[in-house]
């Protein structure tokens, strides 16, 4: 029916094709022109910036049509996004238009948590905060103020609080997320995996994912490289109680019993050692304490691991041999959200050791050695030295914590030990969903003299604040430079592409941090008046300029070698200077020098282990009200194994409530009856079940895993909170 080829149509289409398209196009243009927000600016402007819907910081190009934000695409110059954003980045437009956004500074007018507010001016809000902070400093010292923050936007608040004199600056990304992994790798290689992870997925010939659900966990570069690896025919091995999206791409899917990962890892290492399949040259050259390690794993046979993991010994051997076949281009992915069972640093150390056996650290297809540009910091005056040590980790209770432990600050706030904490700043992290056991968070907040939340949306934690400071969305503000540590060096700029919508009295974080510092008498720490001066000073230090970066968004440095085989000198900054198969520093502190498996605690009969994870269209609990992303996924569902669902008479779409071991009952949540999960656990996507009334679009949709996570097991090495230790029963017909 078509006499002409499609290619020819492409060449000659021209005006003919305009007919149908112009209908939509003209209507859209007319809307934009009539829109008061358009501000009379006509034409299409493209402005480079970087994304903030998650922490990955992908380079983006915002398209502004007639003064109105239209769409955001990837910046082709950006090595992270390679010109393609993830759905959240594409949906970043919705953050700007979200009608539930915070509009103006607020001061609490009733009891904490009652969510009743007086709209105030910025001067009133910042004056109130500064007055309380000065009072706390006079009564308790500056260390009594703590910060919880997430993402690059926290930079300037940290600066102000350091200048004020507190060392207590924390992020849930450590003790509630990647901390155990970073510590496990640090203990083994002397270095961390970093963020973005130094994983060379795209060159891996064998990729092993232990509970890591790439593709659902939408860390852009990693997912792109995962697709490349799959497309190149890499052998993918997925270990997960749930048949994840990645499992659907795998050659081997190992449906492990939840919590038995360390047993599997030890058995894999046993096979590699006993069958002498490991990289003997790499281990001989770089390893420390290998014999003691080998003696430890000698007992960890696949037959030993079988009853724990539920994985057949033959499958364990076969997959270990598969990894050996492709080494060193075999990457056992370190994962990211690693706070599962409370022995997570040791499990992560086992992953590090498995990679060491495969010789993949520092090698192509394994872990590259990241590089970055040299962009000097701003020449600030030195910070005052805090009189007291950090409050979160008294007497080195968590001897291997490499960052501040959020839950340690929370505990100190409750107990007043080792010293009182009287003020909290919370920047861009919804602590009610990020920290386990919200009852403890509330108890801590009730002991504060000052509670400040800085955010773009009215999350649950903002409801507990004394003062809420509304931040401009990332598309409306400058931020700190992203001097990325990655496989190639580059520096990226976030810059405003549009003004906040009409009627929104929001400010960028740098402005708030500076104004607060001025009111605290800390003006010496802000020699610059506008962040443009700050950015330009830093960039000039690197031989660049703000003017140039505003045009391109990104400046890339010269490529450098990133593999041992390309000339990177192998360095392992551990105490021994080698890869520590056996860890004397762990032994000295009374921990297992080689990881040992302890079976996880099981739940009461009739309950299911509560597992949680990510959706590719949402970031934490921070995007559910974004109109575009909300439409992609408005609520979560509880995944229930098909046989279990039949036993309960449930089918997909039915509503249940989840009741945990402590009697906490979730909101009604729909069931996904599926073959894609084991019968001994259930799964929900994190971040739903909002209770904040001002998040109108997201309110009451789905179930909150955070609410059900009343229990957690603290990792004795580093203070991480293992959260896969809660059990729920299904309440049907409610």
């Amino acid at each position, binding site marked *: *029916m*078509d006499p002409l*080829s*499609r*290619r*020819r*149509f*492409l060449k000659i*289409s021209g005006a*003919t*094709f*305009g007919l*149908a*398209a112009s*209908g*939509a*196009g003209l*209507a*859209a243009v007319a*809307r934009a022109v009539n829109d008061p927000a358009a501000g009379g600016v006509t034409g299409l402007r493209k402005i480079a910036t970087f994304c903030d819907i998650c922490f990955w910081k992908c380079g983006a190009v915002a398209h502004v049509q007639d003064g109105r934000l*239209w*769409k955001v*695409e990837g910046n082709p110059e950006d090595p992270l*996004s390679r010109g*393609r*954003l*993830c*759905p959240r980045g*594409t*949906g970043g437009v919705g953050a700007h238009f979200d009608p539930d956004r915070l509009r103006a500074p607020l001061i609490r007018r009733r009891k904490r948590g009652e969510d009743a507010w007086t709209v105030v001016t910025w001067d009133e809000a910042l004056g109130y905060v500064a007055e309380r902070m000065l009072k706390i400093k006079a009564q308790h010292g500056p260390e009594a103020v703590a910060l919880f923050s997430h993402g690059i936007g926290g930079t300037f608040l940290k600066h102000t609080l350091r200048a004020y004199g507190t060392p207590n600056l924390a992020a849930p990304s450590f003790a509630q997320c990647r901390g155990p992994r970073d510590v496990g790798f640090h203990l083994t290689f002397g270095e961390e995996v970093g963020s973005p992870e130094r994983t060379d997925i795209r060159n891996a010939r064998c990729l092993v994912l232990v509970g890591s659900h790439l*593709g*659902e966990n*939408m860390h852009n570069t990693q*997912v*792109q490289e*995962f*697709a*490349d690896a*799959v*497309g190149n025919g890499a052998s993918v091995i997925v270990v997960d109680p749930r*048949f994840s*999206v*990645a*499992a*659907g*791409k795998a050659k081997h*899917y190992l*449906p492990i019993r939840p919590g038995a990962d360390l047993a599997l890892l030890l058995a894999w290492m046993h096979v590699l050692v006993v069958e002498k399949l490991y990289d003997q040259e790499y281990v001989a050259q770089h390893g420390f304490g290998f014999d003691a390690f080998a003696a430890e794993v000698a007992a960890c046979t696949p037959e030993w691991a079988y009853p724990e993991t539920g994985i057949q010994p033959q499958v364990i051997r076969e997959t270990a041999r598969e990894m050996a076949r492709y080494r060193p281009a075999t990457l056992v992915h370190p994962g990211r959200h690693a706070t599962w069972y409370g022995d997570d640093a040791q499990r992560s150390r086992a992953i590090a050791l498995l990679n060491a056996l495969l010789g993949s650290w520092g090698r192509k297809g394994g872990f590259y050695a990241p590089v970055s540009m040299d962009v000097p910091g701003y020449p600030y005056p030195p910070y005052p030295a805090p009189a007291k040590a950090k409050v979160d980790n008294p007497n080195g209770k968590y001897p291997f914590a490499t960052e501040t432990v959020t839950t340690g600050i929370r505990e100190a706030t409750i107990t007043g030990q080792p010293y009182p904490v009287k003020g909290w700043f919370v920047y861009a992290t919804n602590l009610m969903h990020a920290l386990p056991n919200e009852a403890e968070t509330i108890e801590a907040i009730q002991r504060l003299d000052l509670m400040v939340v800085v955010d773009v949306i009215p999350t649950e934690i903002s409801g507990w604040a004394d003062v809420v400071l509304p931040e401009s969305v990332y598309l409306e503000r400058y931020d700190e430079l992203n001097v990325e540590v990655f496989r190639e060096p580059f520096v990226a700029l976030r810059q405003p592409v549009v003004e906040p919508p009409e009627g929104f009295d929001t400010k960028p974080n740098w402005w708030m941090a500076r104004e607060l510092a001025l009111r605290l008498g800390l003006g010496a720490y802000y020699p610059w008046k506008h962040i443009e001066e700050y950015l330009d000073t830093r960039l000039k230090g690197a031989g660049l300029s703000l003017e140039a970066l505003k045009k391109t968004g990104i400046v890339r440095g010269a490529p450098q070698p990133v593999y041992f085989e390309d000339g990177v000198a192998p360095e392992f900054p551990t105490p021994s200077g080698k890869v520590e198969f056996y860890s004397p520093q762990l032994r000295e502190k009374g921990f297992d020098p080689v990881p040992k498996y302890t079976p996880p605690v099981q739940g009461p009969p009739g309950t299911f282990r509560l597992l949680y994870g990510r959706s*590719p*269209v949402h970031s934490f609990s921070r995007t559910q009200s974004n*109109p*575009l992303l909300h*439409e*992609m996924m408005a609520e979560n569902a509880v995944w229930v*194994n*098909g046989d279990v669902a039949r036993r309960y008479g449930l089918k997909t779409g039915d509503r249940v409530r989840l009741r945990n071991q402590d009697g906490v009952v979730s909101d009604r949540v729909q069931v996904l009856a*599926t*073959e*894609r999960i*084991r019968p001994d656990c259930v799964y929900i996507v994190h971040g739903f079940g909002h209770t904040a009334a001002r998040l109108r679009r997201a309110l009451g949709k789905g179930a909150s895993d955070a609410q059900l996570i009343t229990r957690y097991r603290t990792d004795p090495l580093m203070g991480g909170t293992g959260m896969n230790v809660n059990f729920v029963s299904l309440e049907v017909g409610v």
Partner: protein
Amino acid sequence: MVIDTRRCVGCMDCVVACKTENRLPEGLNRDWIAYETRGAFPTLSMEIRTERCNHCDGPPCVSCCPTGASHVETFGTLVLVTHEMCIGCKACLASCPYDARFVHPEGYADKCTFCIHRVREGLDPSCVSVCPTHCMHFGDLDDPASGVSRLLASRRGHALLPAAGTGPRIFYLD
């Protein structure tokens, strides 16, 4: 269009991008994600697909259209709707085996256009150009030398509901 289901992770970036690119109203989308799982736990296989109008060779939505609004473009095999001629009668919605159409609040039947406003400028459709997994490929299926034709020839693939007999022009690589 040729879609490599092995690479697709079902992230919905194509859906969001179509939405912003084409300024679609809330609640209405021109593309979507389908999951097809076979087997019983843990012996499973799964195909994830991004789906949309198949721009069929024998489009029933065109033959049933009383006004000629739904049409096959003279210089291509794209199926399009001339908004001004559409009376919103929904015959095309009923005739489409893929459920690819909806009525736009402004009164016309709407669906995927392969972003012809972009294609005219030498760009890929929005969904193709944003896909982080590079699972979608757009080009000339009538030219055996084109990238999409060669890709399709190199791998086993399938179209959706071939039994409907509409001649769908989107192919999914297994």
